């Protein structure tokens, strides 16, 4: 925002621009010529199936929480295109550093749904990722604190000349933290293979974006770190996939980091412990339901005869089955023995704490 007090006689020494990316309009029509990958019907359908699964998985998780069988859970309702669009553009060897609402990204990368439930039930074993990429980071709860890790990971990848990219996800609130700026600034200095993505869902619990920043976009925050930021329609999975794919390819080719602001909307509460009706109106939420990503992609697929009502019914049944089976496996997981809380504290438990472990195990010191 230019101030009227700016002295117009002084020369302009730098100008910056921020671009916005969107392909599918909220009604599923084409807003701008689609990127080449959309000719791959299999990929589009995979994105669709994945988003539908995430939504059903979320719904099941909330049901488990409401019936006392899961702890506090962060739903991603309305943001499915962000997580799925990003993860689908990554290679397995890339490193994901997720925030706590990125269930969709973890699921796409092969983390078992029962492990995600195990984590939200309060069991560290959920972060083992027994079937997902072993180098990915677990959900990060302290907001934005994973951004410096992404810079460290990317530095290690660059030092070893490995063609891999660190992909770091955080929310709009995180962009107010020094962590995020410090990490992006460092990534810029060293042209690191890192992609930072802010899911701008408009709300940091009860605090709206206008109280986080006076900036017109979050994307422009990359400019201060010396690299490009792009604003993307985060409810358009085609745009999210395309933007992430481009950013990752550039980072992999040694062009340095990129920043993406994924503009979307958190249709659900912050977590199952939150009641969003305290701070935002039903009308506001209803208006955003018209933009949500799943109906949008479905409308496009249907319009192209790539998807039918029968496909939809079959998918719903399949997802239901998968989710129910995952929930059963989660509920059947044997509890940890209490003394195992010591078992991964250090590579080898120091003798100083071994007696505490024995005490918890009911063994008595001589």
């Amino acid at each position: 925002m230019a101030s009227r007090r700016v002295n117009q006689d002084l020369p302009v020494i730098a100008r910056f621009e921020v671009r916005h990316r969107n392909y599918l309009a909220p009604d599923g029509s084409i807003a701008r010529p689609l990127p080449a990958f959309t000719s791959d019907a299999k990929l589009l359908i995979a994105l669709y199936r994945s988003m539908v699964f995430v939504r059903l998985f979320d719904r099941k998780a909330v049901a488990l929480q409401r019936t006392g069988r899961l702890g506090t859970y962060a739903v991603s309702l309305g943001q499915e295109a962000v997580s799925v669009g990003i993860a689908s553009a990554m290679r397995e060897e890339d490193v994901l550093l997720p925030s706590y609402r990125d269930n969709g990204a973890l699921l796409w990368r092969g983390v078992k749904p029962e492990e995600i439930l195990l984590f939200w039930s309060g069991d560290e074993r959920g972060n083992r990722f027994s079937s997902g990429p072993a180098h990915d980071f677990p959900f990060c709860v302290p907001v934005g604190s994973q951004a410096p890790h992404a810079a460290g990971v990317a530095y290690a990848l660059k030092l070893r000349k490995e063609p891999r990219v660190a992909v770091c996800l955080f929310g709009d609130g995180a962009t107010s933290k020094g962590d995020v700026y410090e990490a992006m600034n460092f990534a810029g200095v060293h042209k690191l293979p890192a992609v930072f993505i802010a899911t701008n869902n408009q709300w940091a619990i009860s605090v709206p974006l206008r109280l986080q920043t006076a900036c017109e976009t979050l994307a422009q925050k990359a400019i201060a770190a010396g690299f490009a930021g792009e604003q993307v329609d985060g409810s358009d999975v085609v745009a999210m996939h395309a933007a992430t794919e481009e950013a990752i390819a550039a980072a992999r080719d040694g062009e340095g980091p990129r920043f993406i602001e994924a503009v979307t909307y958190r249709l659900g509460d912050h977590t199952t412990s939150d009641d969003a009706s305290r701070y935002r109106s039903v009308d506001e939420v209803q208006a955003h339901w018209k933009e949500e990503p799943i109906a949008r992609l479905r409308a496009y697929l249907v319009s192209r005869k790539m998807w039918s009502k029968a496909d939809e019914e079959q998918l719903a049944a399949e997802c239901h089955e998968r989710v129910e089976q995952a929930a059963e496996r989660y509920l059947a997981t044997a509890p940890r023995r209490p003394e195992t809380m010591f078992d991964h504290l250090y590579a080898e438990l120091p003798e100083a704490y071994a007696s505490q472990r024995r005490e918890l195990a009911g063994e008595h010191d001589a």
Partner: protein
Amino acid sequence: MPEATLVEAINLALGRAMEEDPDVVVLGEDVGINGGVFRVTAGLQKRFGAERVLDTPLAELLISGLCVGMAAQGLKPVGEIQFMGFIYPCLDQLVNHASRLRNRTQGRLTCPMVLRTPHGAGIRAPEHHSESTEAMLAHIPGLRVVIPSSPARAYGLLLAAIRDPDPVVFLEPTRLYRAAKGEVEDNGESMPLDRAFVMRAGRDITLVSWGAMLKETTAAADTLASDGIAAEVIDLATLKPYDESTLLGSIAKTGRCVIVHEAARTSGFGAEIAADIAERSLPSLLAPVTRVTGYDTVIPMARLEQYYMPSVERIATAARKVCQFS
């Protein structure tokens, strides 16, 4: 054997670690061409290149967070925080991430990093340059906190810290950086972590301390010797986890203990030790356990800092009082 100052010993250990393991990287503010404000990293960038000895932007949180990310990818980062007064932005990373990455992921990701920082007062430095807040760090589960008191132990313990598979905060007694000289063989041999060192054997009283305060504590033991009191002097060296058995073994013999630290008294690490002694060694005790510490005040700036720090006289007086108790 060649002589080295504490600064030179740490420099030798860093060079040795980088030589033997290409995964070791050194990062911090001014650690490159400048060789660090205390010259601890002098010459390392020239030897190992700017990719492995990197000058970071001026952002301490970043330094600690980078270490976590690098370590999770298998590097062995050694971060430098220029003074302990600037380590506080790193606490989020140390508490929430470095110390618990292994536990959070049940061993899938680990954090073999070292965060080095100068520790303590006594060099007439500017404000915020004289902190000794080691107890804050020793409270963090999953972390190791190490503080050497001589060039040889700085060399051996830093090598051990770098090779350790878990995060270590390595506190370097600023006052000893150049004042302490001793024989150091650059032979790549580490010293054991989690172990206290008995510096001097004695039967009458146990004096336990760490870091720069070993200097005054040892001098106090000399004074006591001339009074006919044989003090056993213990350098705790690793504060977390500390070597309780060596300390309690000593107290079983002497029955008396004075704990000396430069940090403020309340919730200082001495309180932890005193509590353990009370719980485990009461039958051996001949006198109350006594602490000689910095005062419960903000560490004063240069002009008054000498009055804040435990002196040889304060330590010796406390020890005599303990010995007179019974």
